[in-house]
């Protein structure tokens, strides 16, 4: 339930058991990886051999506001309008 709430997924109490079983399967599948001997392999974060891909600090044209807001589910006075953001406490 904690994972579901972090991911903003609505999970019914009745479904938790089956989800849990599925997630366990996925996680234990990943465990196969830990059986590989990596003693002589340096940790890898990136799949591509790239580094220092930089951009110069030069402004580019931004989107027009109409275009920026065109996909917004709701808008108001040039703002994106979103539902109340604090949880009930």
């Amino acid at each position: 339930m904690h994972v579901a709430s972090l991911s903003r997924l609505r999970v019914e109490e009745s479904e938790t058991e089956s989800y849990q079983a599925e997630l366990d399967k996925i996680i234990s599948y990943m465990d196969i990886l830990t059986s590989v001997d990596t003693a002589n392999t340096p940790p890898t974060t990136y799949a591509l051999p790239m580094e220092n891909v930089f951009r110069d600090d030069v402004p580019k044209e931004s989107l027009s506001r109409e275009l920026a807001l065109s996909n917004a589910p709701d808008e108001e006075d040039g703002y994106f309008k979103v539902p109340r953001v604090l949880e009930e406490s």
Partner: protein
Amino acid sequence: MQYEAVIGLEIHSELKTNTKIFCGCKTTFGAEQNTHVCPVCLGLPGVLPSVNKKVVEFAIKAGLATNCKINEYSKFDRKNYYYPDLPKNWQTSQYDLPIAEHGFVEILVDGEKKKIGLTRIHMEEDAGKLVHSGTNIKDSASSNVDYNRTGVPLIEIVSEPDMRSAAEARAYMEKIKAILEYIDVSNCRMEEGNLRADINVSLRPVGEEKLGTRTEMKNINSFKALEDAINYEIERQTEVLEDGGKIVQETRTWDPARGVTLSMRSKEDAHDYRYMPEPDLPPIVTSKEEIEAYRKSLPELPDARRARLESEYGLSEYDATIITSSRDMAEYFDGVVATGADAKQAANWIMGDLSKNLNADSIAIKDSPVEAKRLGEMIGLIEKGTISGKIAKQVFAEMWKNPDPPEKIVKDKGLVQITDTKAIEGIVDEVIAKNQKAVEDYKNGNKKAIGALVGQVMKASKGKANPQTVNQLLAKKLEE
């Protein structure tokens, strides 16, 4: 029981780049809502961010200026959380390999020097701005979001929990601000949110090593709020503990109008953010040579400048600390001294009348109507004896409104000091004649009575008589 406060700060500073950290949108403050946005900072699918080189340069400089070790291999990570101020549902930040780590700065509080440790400095993107429809965040049915600020580059400077009072926290934040100003990487305009702090406060019994449960207050953007919020929180936690209660680990907001902190939400643990390496941004590799080149490019920093003002001009540590606390003030001081004015006088005028007037009119020192050059000239007039220190206060007040050179103002207003002994002698005689009681007192051994007489002479001369001459003449005449 006696408690000790343990305080740590996370300072967020917006960097003064032209463009955002991962896209070419402008960073200008105060633009119309949602006009500085593009597919990258709006988090639209399929976009590829790329790092602004200036951001890395500025972050490395900030690290070096705060005695940090620069990590030669650094990377970005995604910090996942759901809040509409970040449209991607994660903040691109740095987790385990920040650009800089293990630094310190020195602060001076009540004449005592103290080292405050820096855990780390990392680069990240700022979030958007929420405008709430209700009177505050808690009773708003909906919120409006402006994404102009989303993606503005930030460095987050995380301190060790080394501070023990609000005054120390303030001195620390002032030092960080000064350093960032000196190395010219942030505008540090606190009222625009360029520089803001998250404060962690906990209490523990004096002598105890173990840290108590902490609370966090976010987005404090003035020195006054910083001190007030910390003092309030120390008091609140003391009361809770003394009543046998427990501190809840939570985020609280500071309400400056009511002067209280209020509970906001329970703090999510670090693992809840499910950090993962940002696959779209390759790592940042900086060679030792590049780091050394950055180190060499740094200007004189506040501590070095303070030491120089002490040794070169004989300023006290306290004065030198205040003068160097902002780069603009230090530059102003240099400007005054460059005119040949005495350095101690310069410091006194800057910390006294100048600061008072600037504060009263809310003017930044670099926009001061009394420029460094004119203040220097005015101090020169005092040194030459053209005006007395007392009259100088009037001259200064006039200079505030009048752009003329001080010499002209002194002449036009007839404020030139009377040094002519004959003229002063006349006034002295008159005062002696009118104040027989003080004269008697003096002659009966109450030497302090001369003070009242000096005052009378100064008053009669409208402050223009040279006080030394007055003293000498009075003493001579009273001994006769």
